């Protein structure tokens, strides 16, 4: 008699718990509906539309748009900018994270704040800063033109602003991780006779590699996609100083919908690849 009654008691408690923790059906449906609706409206629909427009006149028009010299030039410039920017900011990010998490020095909190500056400044303002520095009316302008060095409206200028805009990504990923890890393992390596470089490559780097790759990935995505700052310093010379995002805008303004969306589809594809890699790295880091 005892056993069945206690089972029944458990069953009642379980149902009671479930009912106590669940929200009413209409609320669940409404919340899920809002979330899914938002994602479809603001994420999936635009992405789909980019692809739809890119292929609106068929495969041939798509590839023809992509193989146009200006598009190819824009793609090449974008890759050059990313190739120059990402290694620079990777080195800078590691150095900054190392300095901030391993040493005490005056001005440390100022440096930590400054690293975040590019995030809090509008990209257009970032671009204008560089025009004020290197433009023909700017501080270094006369000296640069006297020495025949071209920075504004040329590749160096685009690289400079991109470095500025993407500079926090790697450091921001590494600083919290390295703070949490502490430096005992590095000290242990030192006391075992490893020098600074060996300690870095054998101990520090293996411990931070997933966070580092994650930061590099985000840095790369932004370097390829940056519009505002690059737009200010590029001068929009077709086939010369247009990066892919700028090329998209120029093509669209020329009523070249297929060209614009074909270029946009490359950037969108890059975004999707970034997302997939990002979730892989997040999974791996855990």
């Amino acid at each position: 008699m005892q056993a069945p009654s206690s089972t029944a008691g458990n069953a009642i408690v379980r149902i009671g718990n479930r009912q106590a923790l669940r929200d009413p059906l209409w609320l669940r449906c409404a919340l899920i509906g809002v979330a899914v609706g938002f994602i479809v409206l603001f994420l999936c629909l635009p992405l789909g539309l980019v692809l739809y427009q890119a292929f609106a006149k068929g495969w041939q028009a798509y590839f023809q748009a992509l193989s146009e010299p200006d598009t190819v030039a824009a793609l090449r410039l974008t890759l050059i900018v990313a190739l120059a920017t990402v290694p620079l900011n990777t080195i800078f990010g590691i150095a900054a994270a190392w300095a901030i998490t391993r040493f005490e020095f005056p001005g440390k909190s100022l440096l930590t704040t400054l690293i975040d500056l590019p995030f809090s400044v509008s990209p257009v303002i970032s671009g204008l800063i560089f025009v004020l520095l290197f433009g023909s009316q700017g501080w270094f302008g006369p000296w640069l033109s006297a020495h025949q060095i071209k920075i504004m409206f040329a590749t160096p200028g685009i690289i400079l602003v991109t470095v500025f805009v993407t500079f926090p990504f790697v450091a921001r990923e590494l600083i919290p991780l390295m703070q949490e890890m502490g430096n005992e393992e590095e000290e242990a390596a030192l006391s075992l006779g490893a020098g600074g470089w060996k300690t870095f490559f054998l101990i520090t780097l293996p411990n931070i590699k997933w966070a580092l790759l994650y930061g590099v990935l985000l840095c790369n995505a932004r370097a390829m996609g940056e519009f505002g700052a690059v737009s200010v310093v590029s001068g929009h010379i077709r086939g010369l100083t247009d990066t892919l995002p700028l090329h998209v805008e120029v093509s669209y303004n020329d009523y070249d919908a297929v060209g614009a969306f074909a270029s946009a589809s490359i950037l969108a594809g890059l975004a999707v690849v970034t997302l997939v890699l990002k979730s892989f790295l997040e999974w791996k880091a855990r």
Partner: protein
Amino acid sequence: MSIRLIDISKNFGQFAALHNINLDIPAGELVALLGPSGCGKTTLLRIIAGLETPDQGRVLLKDEDITGQHASRRGIGFVFQHYALFRHMTVFDNIAFGLRVKPRRERPAETEITKKAHALLELVQLDWLADRFPDQLSGGQRQRIALARALAVAPEVLLLDEPFGALDASVRKDLRLWLRNLHQELNVTSIFVTHDQEEAMEVASQVVVLNQGRIEQQGSPDAIYDNPVNAFVSKFIGQTNILHVEQNDAAWLKSAGLVFENPQGIYAHVRPHDIDIEKMSATSASPLILKDWQHLGSSIRIELVNPQLEGSGGSLYAEMSNRRFKQLNLNRGDRVAAHIRQAHWFD
């Protein structure tokens, strides 16, 4: 290898961690740096290892000045409180690390390294863990692997920061004896930091008591326990009753056998085992009442109160063997007399 510290000082901002430390550690000793937390003992250890730079002073290793030498060139092994094992390497790779990072000319062949690492794993009795990662080990195992890793490069001096601090009480007891035996076997000059006076007394051949960045006393465990040089050492090492003579009933203390001839201070420090207890009749003149007792395993601690000195004197603790306690047949509330065999006097 002997170590000599000359006039070491270290400040962290406004906080003075070490004041003019002078210390000689002869070769082959197992020395405990003992002190309450924040007394500077870990800082001193890190200065010897080269992980911290002193603001002033010199570190000598066998008469050679190594103050300016990089930590990686000092040949000093360091075992960290939380072990600091390399989490991305197996136990075997952890131990082999010190040998593998040697400059090419000094590096032994890989077969040699393998042999040595396995020998060390056997030394710490954990050969079966070679392929595990640090997070798969228990605390005691990690501790022993950290020690094996430090020993791999054959250091001339071994430093251990709170080596038993993060372990269970039972594991700690085993490892203490094990470390002492290992030290006798290897005979490498070793210094360990601890805040646990029992641990220092049990393991070390020399104890250095630190307080607020200064050395209070250095000596063998016996010397420090039997002849503390000041009130801090007396209070910190072992249990002690502190009797303020002026606030106490001097007549009673005299009758209890406290010798007042040439007292060098106003506080008498009396070890609990230096107090002998006698059971008295209820009408006796002795002011002491037995309040309670605690079983400490091999001995019994008895708490005595003097109702006439309420609030001022507090309790008096005495310790005796279980057998003696049974013989006395004491109960709570009994009137007892105390006999003080020995006291240390401090200001």
